[in-house]
């Protein structure tokens, strides 16, 4: 772990310093922070600092929603007159977890890559500052370190906060983060404290604890190497596990709509007389309509093909196209699956060397 980042000087911010910082931010920017929304914790715009919950495991919905929302207007039109949505404000997603941050790096491959850049994603990505919060206590369903991430992984973030107990260590991760800290937690801000070396040791200690916690009882003991995972899955296309999972899976979209790296979308129009709008909406590969041809033919007709597609896409096809596994190990799909299909066990079955014969208990297919 680096003592301070080379992007700029780290600093300490006291617990009520953070509240003051948030109040200042809210004055000018749209601040999205974890908010208790009846039954769930979700990133929502806050109007004052007290709404932000900073002691939590992870939000139910990923912070991906801030950059790639479930529903957005691509165009509005009146007759043949077409215009694109209006301007938005600078925004900050505050206290997001490292796994969510990594998802943006993965999504960049799709939305900013060739053949053409997605302007809607590009604008939000550019105008949204990502302030991360280290995972001092990863939950038992987290497996970020198994897919190349980590509870103290700073990649994808602008600023990295670590809750040291009585204060937060705020480290800029890149130039943008340094500028953010200078502006909002500068020496003159009243909540700036020198970051002495003991703060960094404390952080490293917390990081080690978090990593050790992730290792206890980890289902995926050793981290997945993208190229090996891709190659292993190439021989697993006809694995009997798919039949079992396809039979048990309800075919709902809970796992995809809570997944930070799912990026499939639909484009459809809504109109009333001559005016209306063209929308981009999330879509889900588990729904039959996703690949249904107008002729009635469906290349993926049943649950078996569809659940196979979801896993092959993230752990084989995405690797073939972009060289990385499209999973950040946040565990949301594990927690939210109504029938408890656990991705960690599915992966360990598929990637275990016993090959097809061995079947652990989760998959439901026996004998």
């Amino acid at each position, binding site marked *: 772990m680096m003592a301070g980042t080379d992007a700029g000087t780290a600093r300490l911010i006291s617990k009520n310093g953070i509240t003051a910082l948030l109040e200042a931010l809210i004055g000018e920017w749209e601040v999205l922070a974890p908010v208790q929304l009846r039954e769930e914790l979700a990133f929502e715009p806050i109007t004052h600092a007290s709404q932000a919950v900073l002691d939590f495991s992870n939000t139910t919905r990923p912070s991906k929603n801030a950059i790639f929302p479930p529903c957005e207007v691509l165009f509005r039109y009146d007759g043949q007159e077409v215009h694109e949505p209006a301007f938005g404000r600078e925004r900050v997603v505050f206290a997001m977890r490292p796994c969510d941050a990594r998802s943006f790096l993965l999504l960049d491959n799709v939305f900013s890559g060739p053949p053409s850049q997605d302007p809607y994603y590009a604008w939000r990505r550019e105008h949204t500052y990502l302030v991360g919060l280290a995972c001092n206590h990863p939950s038992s369903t987290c497996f970020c370190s198994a897919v190349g991430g980590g509870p103290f992984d700073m990649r994808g973030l602008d600023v990295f906060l670590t809750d040291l107990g009585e204060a937060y260590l705020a480290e800029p991760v890149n130039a943008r983060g340094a500028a953010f800290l200078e502006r909002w937690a500068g020496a003159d801000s009243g909540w700036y404290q020198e970051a002495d070396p003991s703060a960094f040791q404390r952080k490293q200690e917390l990081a080690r604890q978090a990593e050790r916690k992730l290792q206890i009882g980890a289902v995926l003991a050793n981290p997945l190497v993208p190229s090996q995972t891709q190659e292993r899955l190439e021989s697993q296309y006809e694995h009997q596990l798919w039949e079992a999972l396809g039979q048990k899976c309800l075919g709902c979209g809970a796992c995809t709509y809570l997944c930070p790296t799912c990026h499939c979308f639909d484009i459809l129009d*809504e*109109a*009333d*007389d001559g005016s*209306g*709008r063209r929308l981009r909406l999330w879509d889900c590969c588990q729904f039959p309509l996703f690949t249904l041809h107008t002729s009635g033919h469906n290349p993926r007709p049943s649950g078996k093909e569809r659940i196979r597609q979801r896993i092959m896409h993230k752990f084989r096809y995405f690797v073939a196209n972009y060289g990385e596994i499209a999973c950040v190990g946040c565990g949301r799909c594990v927690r939210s699956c109504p029938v408890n299909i656990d991705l960690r066990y599915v992966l360990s079955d598929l990637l275990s060397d016993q090959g097809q014969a061995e079947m652990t208990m989760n998959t439901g297919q026996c004998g």
Partner: protein
Amino acid sequence: MALAGPEPESIASQPEPVSGPSQGGWEPTIVAFLCNWCSYAGADLAGISRIQYPANVRIIRVPCSGRINPLFIIKALQTGADGVLVSGCHPGDCHYISGNYYARRRFALLKSLLEFVGLEPGRVHFAWVSAAEGEKFASLISGVVQEVKALGPAERLVKVS
């Protein structure tokens, strides 16, 4: 305002309602699904006998009140109908014997659920009007228009696209 379903055939030439901006001048738009054998004929009778009734109503003729799918009513509310009226034959008079009996249960549950979710009572109306009740039809329409006008423009379940 584009409505789902067939183009409404108006009986008498109905003046285009003036949707005035101010509350006083605002005129609600009512969509009425009338069963062809009784209520539509009742409306026809009101027209022939020169009985005046508000012009806010857009009539959609259907073979029977039993033909009404709750989705029609919800779609009407979505596309900006401020009020919806469904009217069929009195029980026992149905040209298809039991259409209105089935419809009665369906409408009871629909109205109960819509108002349970919070749609203002008075937005959705159900009635039996026979072919001979031109008078009743006219007063029914006036009553519905008045009630909906009191509630103001529809906001709940309205789809803004």
